């Protein structure tokens, strides 16, 4: 008997982008509001898990062709690189810097190197959680 889950798949296709945009918002709002890399990463994981629920493992792996263990490595490299980059400027390890820039579309924007560290945390959380879920859910 072939089950038909058209409603779930159509809902997942729309809802995935809403959850993903919300996770991006929470990731970027983390400096002045609740949120940050960890919650944003977990929400992105939730969006991908919704795709895994509506479709199957092979389709999602073909749609998002990332090796998620490599994503963990890239995230760790970003965080450690941000921490170690402060040594080049003769300041202690993990010293952050920020400045105000006049970006074309955003106006006066405060850019902080903690955001790069946070994106490393984001990538590590997404990679670790998706690796766990795919390796647990994928066996026959």
């Amino acid at each position, binding site marked *: 008997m072939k*089950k038909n889950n058209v409603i779930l798949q159509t809902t997942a296709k729309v809802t995935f982008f809403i959850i993903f945009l919300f996770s991006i918002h929470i990731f970027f709002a983390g400096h002045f509001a*609740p949120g940050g890399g960890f919650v944003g990463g977990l929400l992105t994981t*939730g969006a991908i898990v919704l795709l895994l629920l509506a479709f199957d493992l092979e389709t999602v792996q073909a749609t998002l062709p990332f090796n998620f263990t490599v994503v963990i490595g890239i995230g760790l490299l970003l965080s450690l690189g941000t921490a170690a980059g402060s040594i080049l400027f003769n300041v202690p390890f993990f010293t952050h810097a920020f400045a105000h820039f006049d970006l074309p579309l955003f106006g006066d924007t405060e850019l902080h190197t903690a955001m790069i560290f946070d994106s490393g945390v984001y990538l590590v959380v997404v990679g670790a959680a998706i690796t766990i879920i795919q390796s647990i859910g994928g066996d026959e």
Partner: protein
Amino acid sequence: MNIFIWVCLIIIFLSMLGTLIRVFKGPSTPDRLIALDGIGVMLISIIALLSIVFDTIFFIDVILLIAIMSFIGTVSFSKFIEKGAIIDRDTRR
């Protein structure tokens, strides 16, 4: 206005207790699942009212977060009830 919000909170608390009875002695698993989904919605309304009480906007993200997580949890539980597996390897076979 403040009394109104506290009365609303008490009403939602009582309805949460009533739904909790269905969670504890629901005869079948789908009863418990629907009751837990309802408790999620009540939690959302409690957080919205508490954010009015505390006069802060920082709880608004939590509302959307609980809605998303409750939806994903309900979908995964119902898929487990229906098929026995939450994530399929290949559905096209």
